[in-house]
């Protein structure tokens, strides 16, 4: 399957033109949803004190994780632009989400609670992952006082976008270990209508612009069914969940000896990935905005034959894999390649489990 890669500038302009002519439809009843944070009604807006940029980020994250929404957006990266649709629903505390590539591969990602399914029609494969139930509510990186040491977070103005009043918030990295963001956050709903990912020099490396966005009160279950026919597809499922705590006391644990400034371990877990029978140690490091996952696998024959170091890019995110003491270490995160490379090469087995690390 091949796709044309037209001139990025022209397409970006076209994308923005679409965005400007598109409407953000909001269900009136939806504004009154209990899950929506403050300042969602005109009356509240008049009396609400001005929010700090960090509070806008908090509101945005809250809106993205608690609201119902159905939107179409353009995703631009590396000179290529593609349209996607995202549908997100929170119903009785259960999160459902569907992300569909509207052109190109036709891939779909569907989440229903702790069940994640990735439909890859170009591979005729479906990946199905069952997360531990508690992880379906796992917290994302939270901006705190320490975050300000590594990012300059500020509001740079207000702008009309899609005929909506938006607050333009910039999250600028103070060094080159991480990326930054420019966010156009809807003043009423706190939904980000446009986001840009930028490197430490402010250069845009990825952009998402909503062309349409609706916030319905209800979204039917049918909206979370895949469009792709899976007839004849391979289904790769997670095996039996690995015990979260080993039967015998652990004599060593994987940890990063050194980290880029501001990064700290937030989660340590063991899981089985689709298509594998081996449990994988999963460590998560975050600086409050970016996060990096490190996966540690016991070296198999396939791993042994693979090159010792490999790198990959998924959009602006980076992945780096290496072999340490007979284990394959892979770091993945929305950070520059050198950052995941550094973290991966610093992961070693240590004799003692450090105190204070959350266990899942």
């Amino acid at each position: 399957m091949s796709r044309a890669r037209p001139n990025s500038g022209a397409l970006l302009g076209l994308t923005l033109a679409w965005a400007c002519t598109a409407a953000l439809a909001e269900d009136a009843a939806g504004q009154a949803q209990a899950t929506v944070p403050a300042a969602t009604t005109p009356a509240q807006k008049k009396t609400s004190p001005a929010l700090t940029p960090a509070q806008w980020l908090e509101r945005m994250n809250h809106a993205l994780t608690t609201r119902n929404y159905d939107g179409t957006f353009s995703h631009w990266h590396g000179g290529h632009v593609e349209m996607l649709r995202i549908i997100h629903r929170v119903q009785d505390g259960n999160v459902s989400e569907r992300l569909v590539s509207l052109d190109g591969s036709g891939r779909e990602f569907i989440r229903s609670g702790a069940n994640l399914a990735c439909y890859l029609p170009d591979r005729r494969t479906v990946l199905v992952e069952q997360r531990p139930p508690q992880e379906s509510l796992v917290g994302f990186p939270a901006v705190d006082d320490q975050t300000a040491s590594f990012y300059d977070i500020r509001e740079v103005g207000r702008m009309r976008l899609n005929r909506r009043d938006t607050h333009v918030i910039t999250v600028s990295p103070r060094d080159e270990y991480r990326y930054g963001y420019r966010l156009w956050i809807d003043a009423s709903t706190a939904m980000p209508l446009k986001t840009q990912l930028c490197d430490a020099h402010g250069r845009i490396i990825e952009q998402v612009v909503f062309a349409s966005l609706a916030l319905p009160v209800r979204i039917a279950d049918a909206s979370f069914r895949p469009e792709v026919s899976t007839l004849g597809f391979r289904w790769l499922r997670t095996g039996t969940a690995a015990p979260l705590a080993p039967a015998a006391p652990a004599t060593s644990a994987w940890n990063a000896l050194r980290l880029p400034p501001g990064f700290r371990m937030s989660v340590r877990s063991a899981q089985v990935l689709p298509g594998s029978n081996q449990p994988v140690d999963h460590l998560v490091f975050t600086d409050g905005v970016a996060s990096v996952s490190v996966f540690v696998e016991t070296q198999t024959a396939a791993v042994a034959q693979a090159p010792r170091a490999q790198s990959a890019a998924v959009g602006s995110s980076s992945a780096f894999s290496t072999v340490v003491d007979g284990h394959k270490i892979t770091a993945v995160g929305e950070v520059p390649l050198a950052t995941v490379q550094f973290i991966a090469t610093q992961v070693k087995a240590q004799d003692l489990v450090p105190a204070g690390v959350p266990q899942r």
Partner: protein
Amino acid sequence: MNEELDSQLSAMFDDQLPPAECELLARRLSRDEQLKARWGRYAVMGAVIRAERGVRLNAPLAGRVSAVLLAEPALGAQSLAGALPRRGLRWWQPVVAGALAAGVAAVSILWLRAEAPSSVASLSARLTTPAAASGASVIPASARERGGRADSYVVPPSPAVPAVVVPSTELANYVVAHSMFSSPVARRNLLSAFMTSEPAAAGAEEPPDDVKSAAQ
């Protein structure tokens, strides 16, 4: 100038020349005036292209490179006052300026090329303070200052990242697993990028033997 050399220069400017060849060519650049002039033309063209793209040379980097040039007799001596007599503006002065810029660019490219593979080592050298909660070490507070960011670490530009055009199933697993721990915006970006990454060619990846597979 032969075609091969010209091709090497072009490749070097595009950051496509292998490091070993790059080093040899750089040595030759330092003593071959004709080659240096040729490089100057590439640099001017490159600057125009960069300007069109809205990309600027990192100012601290340019400053560093200039400093290196001034301290480097082979490249810097002829670029100073002696090479530019005060005889008023001449038509060729922009060319000389271009050559000077070329010298800067030459050093900057070499500097970047030399720096990229060792970026991890450079970082390692700066990481010395024990960490508190995670048992890891972090960079000293002084290293966080923005002024020091160009010292030894350069973010690889996106196009230079060796991309796996066809994400492997394994990578897909990692991406999906990681996405659960990303911020909502980063998560959406990551999954979107995965959704839109280049589709696999038919038969590009065969399933591993030990894979658990079942028909629905």
